């Protein structure tokens, strides 16, 4: 475990020494801040209209702001995850530092786990900015914190699976751009294949919509912990990291 931590610290160090982390944090904060501002504006206008018509329709922060914003965060995350994972192995392969790691007395899975945890760490930092926005809701209103907490759990699990896939793809090439673009393509595909479930009811459509990463997020967004969705993401994490390990091993046999 010490070795995992050594690798993880080094990776986090490279993120935060280079402009990568700050760029991603700034972009994410801006985009999510815009979403938040938008959602809040709509909420306030609706509230005023209700009052003018003399209706007392219950306004709900959880349902009208937190839930849609969490699913926004999950989609925006899709765009940021390739930028987090693309360098993990591709850069080490290009500069030859992979030889240092591979000839040190440390196991492959320790390297992989360390790198994946560092990627999770950076993604968690992105989520911190969303928490900053949500904090205002708690200051001026009283939303339920439990669905929000579950939503974050869902976001982390989803990101974990996608980051694992990105890590795997990063072991396949020396070129960061290729790793990033391929990861982005795969993740976009994993998002949109769920759409067939909306009009098609055949068996294959069910399979496709089951494979979609975003459909499994819905329950978390609603504040429901559905074990089958959690299992989906956890399986994704394991599969992604398992393939990464296989790929690292095959690097040695091939090259």
């Amino acid at each position, binding site marked *: 475990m010490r070795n995992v931590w050594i690798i993880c610290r080094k990776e986090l160090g490279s993120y935060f020494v280079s402009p990568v982390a700050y760029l991603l944090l700034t972009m994410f904060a801006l985009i999510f801040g815009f979403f938040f501002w938008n959602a809040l504006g709509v909420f306030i206008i609706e509230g005023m209209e209700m009052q003018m018509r003399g209706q007392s329709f219950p306004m709900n922060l959880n349902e009208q702001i937190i839930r849609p914003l969490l699913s926004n965060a999950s989609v925006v995350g899709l765009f940021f995850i390739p930028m987090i994972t693309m360098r993990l192995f591709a850069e080490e392969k290009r500069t030859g530092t992979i030889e240092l790691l591979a000839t040190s007395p*440390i196991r492959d899975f320790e390297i992989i786990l360390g790198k994946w945890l560092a990627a999770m760490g950076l993604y968690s930092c992105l989520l911190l900015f969303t928490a900053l926005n949500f904090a205002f809701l708690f200051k001026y209103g009283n939303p339920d914190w439990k669905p929000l907490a579950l939503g974050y759990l869902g976001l982390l699990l989803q990101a974990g699976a996608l980051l694992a896939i990105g890590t795997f793809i990063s072991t396949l090439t020396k070129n960061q751009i290729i790793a990033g673009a391929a990861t982005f393509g795969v993740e976009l595909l994993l998002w949109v294949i769920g759409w067939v479930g909306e009009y098609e009811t055949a068996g294959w459509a069910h399979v496709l919509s089951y494979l979609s990463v975003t459909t499994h997020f819905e329950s978390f967004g609603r504040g429901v912990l559905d074990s089958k969705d959690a299992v989906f993401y956890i399986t994704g994490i394991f599969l992604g990291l398992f393939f990464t390990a296989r790929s690292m091993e095959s690097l040695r046999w091939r090259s």
Partner: protein
Amino acid sequence: MISAKALCKRYAGVTAVDQISFEVTKGQIVGFLGPNGAGKTTTMRMLTCFLPPSSGTVKVAGFDVLEQPLQVKKRIGYLPETPPIYPEMETVEYLKFVGKLKGLRGGDLQKRVDYVCERCAVADVRKRLLGKLSKGYRQRVGLAQAIIHNPDVLVLDEPTAGLDPKQINETRDLIKSLAGDHTIILSTHILPEVEQTCEHVIIINQGKLVATDSVRNLQARARGAESVLIEVGGRNGSLEAPIVQSKLEQVAGVSRVLCKQQVDSRAFFEVESQKGKLVRGDLARAVVAAGWDLNELRPAAMSLEEIFLQLTGSEASTDGAPESEKVPAKESRG
């Protein structure tokens, strides 16, 4: 310390390393010599557990690279062809990271980092970003990371490639000074480097082992008959080279005399003697007795370069490119 047996590495359709066997004993500096593409790097990568051998075995300090890679990795320091540095790290930060990877902790780690900084002369760039260092410094940081955990075995892949002559000398001296504590294997395609730094040499060509011996033995073996270079000068400003030649040929044990050059009253000869006969004393006496000046008399030791060309030349002649490089090299000496 290192023992390789029938080591092979095959890629799709290509055999990069073919049945190489060698032994390296503790404390030796061994030069791994071969033209570019001979399989040096591949062999070194197999020694360091970066690549698994296709067949054959390698043992480092008694541990097999396939069965106990972690034990092997703990005992090996490796400097790949390009130093494996992270440009965004500072020198000390990087050395600490590598030290931790190799299992050093706390006080030990700090002591070793300070020690290797001094030893490899990188103490003056401790706080500099590695990406901003010159090639020479990077190479030394690379060496520093290789020795940080005080490994039994050091594997250095072309440690002087791309350095300027001054840096090459410094790096060689550094490697030589490390020899006492570590067993060192270094690869190179530069021949004088082997003569200057190594005691032992392993020559490979096109993936095959060509020779493995001590530098001295190899020179002796390739020389066969002893040959002596001799410069004779005439006393009164004139010298008849053919007369000198016939005189030298009469010396007992001499098999052949070649007049290589004559400049004014000085003539240069290469004298070959029969195997096992020492003729240098007799030659000197013969020259002096005939009233000529003996300006120079020295054994013509064959350089490793000639040995190398002799050993690899016949096989290289099957493909065009190396041949064209070698022919003029041979002629210039003839």
